[in-house]
């Protein structure tokens, strides 16, 4: 399941959806808005998406991970809009029979998401604002 939404997620609810009768491991990654960046207090974060394309890219990533790793179910939930320090940004949840595959798939999904999915974060400070660029 792929979700791009202004709404927050409940990690517990999402994890319960990817549990199957053959599941032996569930791994989740939650990205959270930091309260401080480069020594400056963050006021808020604006997240923008090219939603239709981001959804397609996330589906491609999910399908790729399902082929590349021995995993069962994947849910990716990415939030957009205005978020504040401590708010959830993204959840990646993966179930598998054994932990190694779920860990590897989760790492792969968040790394690739940061490279290819058309989503942008703007950090707003008390004295200015800045679009985030991932380090290459």
């Amino acid at each position, binding site marked *: 399941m792929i979700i791009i939404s202004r709404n927050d997620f409940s990690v517990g609810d999402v994890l319960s959806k990817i549990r199957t009768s053959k599941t032996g491991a569930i791994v989740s990654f939650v*990205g959270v808005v930091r309260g401080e960046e480069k020594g400056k207090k963050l006021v808020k974060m604006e*997240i*923008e*998406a*090219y939603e*239709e*394309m*981001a959804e*397609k890219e996330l589906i491609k990533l999910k399908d790729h991970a399902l082929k590349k790793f021995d995993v069962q179910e994947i849910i990716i939930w*990415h939030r957009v809009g205005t978020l504040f320090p401590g708010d959830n*940004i*993204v959840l990646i949840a993966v179930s598998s029979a054994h932990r190694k595959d779920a860990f590897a798939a989760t790492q792969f999904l*968040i790394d690739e*998401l*940061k*490279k*290819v*999915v*058309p*989503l*942008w*974060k*703007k950090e707003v400070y008390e004295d200015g604002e800045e*679009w*985030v*660029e*991932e380090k290459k």
Partner: protein
Amino acid sequence: MKVKIKFFASYREIVGKHEITMDLKQGTKLSDLIEDLKCRYPRLQGFTDPIVTSVNKKYARDDVILNDGDEIALLPPVSGG
């Protein structure tokens, strides 16, 4: 032919619009359109890396020939997650 061009994040702020429509000659390449946009909006030239683009919601190469009704997007370096 008419195409729709979408701008996101820092590019949207430079252009001041989320979306514009342009009339192009048949056979226009994506690279021609990007050069045209850089002339219209000179601040788009301030980026050292090539501008990443999509056509109809798929990442596109510069040499692709555009068609009537295409939706082009200019995509700044992504930073989700």
